[in-house]
């Protein structure tokens, strides 16, 4: 291999590696974006809240199950740029939302919805 190419690689490889590392640590907002309609966590969260607050509890329960499945998929993507505490709190709040829907408690649904929304906005950013 020619000398200039080796010299170029000597500087280019570490620079490229650093760029990849910096970018990978800041991919949280990108990885949170939905990869399809089945993956749109914020929209599904709003749907659960809207259905529950309008008293359509059966539909809200089904929507909440879909939301939990979506979270299970998204969780893997956002884990690298988030803390374990954030992930665990999201799990707990999701369980709280499920309990609120099962118990048909408007106030608790509202509380869990707002907390989940706030945490989602902050997650991995």
């Amino acid at each position, binding site marked *: 291999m020619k000398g200039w190419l080796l010299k170029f690689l000597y500087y280019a490889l570490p620079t490229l590696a650093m760029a990849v590392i910096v970018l990978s640590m800041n991919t949280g907002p990108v990885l949170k974006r939905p990869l399809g309609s089945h993956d749109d966590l914020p929209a599904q969260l709003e749907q659960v809240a809207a259905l529950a607050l309008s008293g359509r509890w059966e539909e809200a329960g089904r929507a909440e199950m879909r939301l939990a499945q979506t979270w299970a998929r998204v969780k893997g993507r956002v884990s*690298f740029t988030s803390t*374990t505490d954030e992930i665990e709190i999201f799990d707990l709040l999701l369980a709280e939302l499920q309990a609120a829907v099962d118990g048909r408690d408007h106030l608790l649904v509202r509380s869990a919805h707002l907390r989940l929304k706030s945490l989602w906005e902050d997650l991995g950013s």
Partner: protein
Amino acid sequence: MSVGEATIVAVRAVVTFVSLLIFTRLLGKTQIAQLTYFEWVTGITIGSIGGVLTTDLSIRPWPVFVGLAVWVALVMLTQYIALKSRWTGKMLDGEPVVVVHNGQILEKSLAQVRMRVGELNSLLREKNVFDISTVEAALLEPHGKLSVLLRSQERPVTPKDLKIPTAYEGLGVELVVDGEVMEQNLRRMGLNRAWLLDRLREEGVSGPGEAFLAIIDTQGRIYVDRYEDRLPPADRVGDYPGPN
């Protein structure tokens, strides 16, 4: 720890490994040698931030990485300032302190560096000095080691003292490393592969593939280490057949 967490730790370990590899190359050899106490402390701090970046999943990786990068940048900045300004260099690194002069211990200097006489004796013994009266000067360096200059009568005799002429030795040049011919070194010495093969044959080696290391010195002498070690049975010190 769940499988997910183990995966994240593994990814973070790779990221930290590559980052530290690049950062330590940036910091240069003086930081690795840890010539001063401050460099030793910064080395440890950078290492422990790297540890946090790998395993502490309660903190997002980006702020920790920023902390690591800032530490490296600050060390590089102090290195640069110390190079440019002699005063700052002295302030950052400190200066050697003379603790023994002409066979007498300088108590004020010892107090200044907060060293007890027992510690001084211990450092002197590490330098094979058991009689302080033989010391012309002993200096405590900024990295905490003692440099000792013995009285001229106590120093080992050198060829110069005996007025014996010696030839320039210089550094040896590697011609074969791990069975591979170092073509660049051969060219630099104005030699070629055919010459090398001839010399290797003279040394009883049929080709470079048989040599683990071949070095030529400035006198043209060749040192060859073969892969095949001819060790007499009496020199095999292991006392059981397993790994040593």
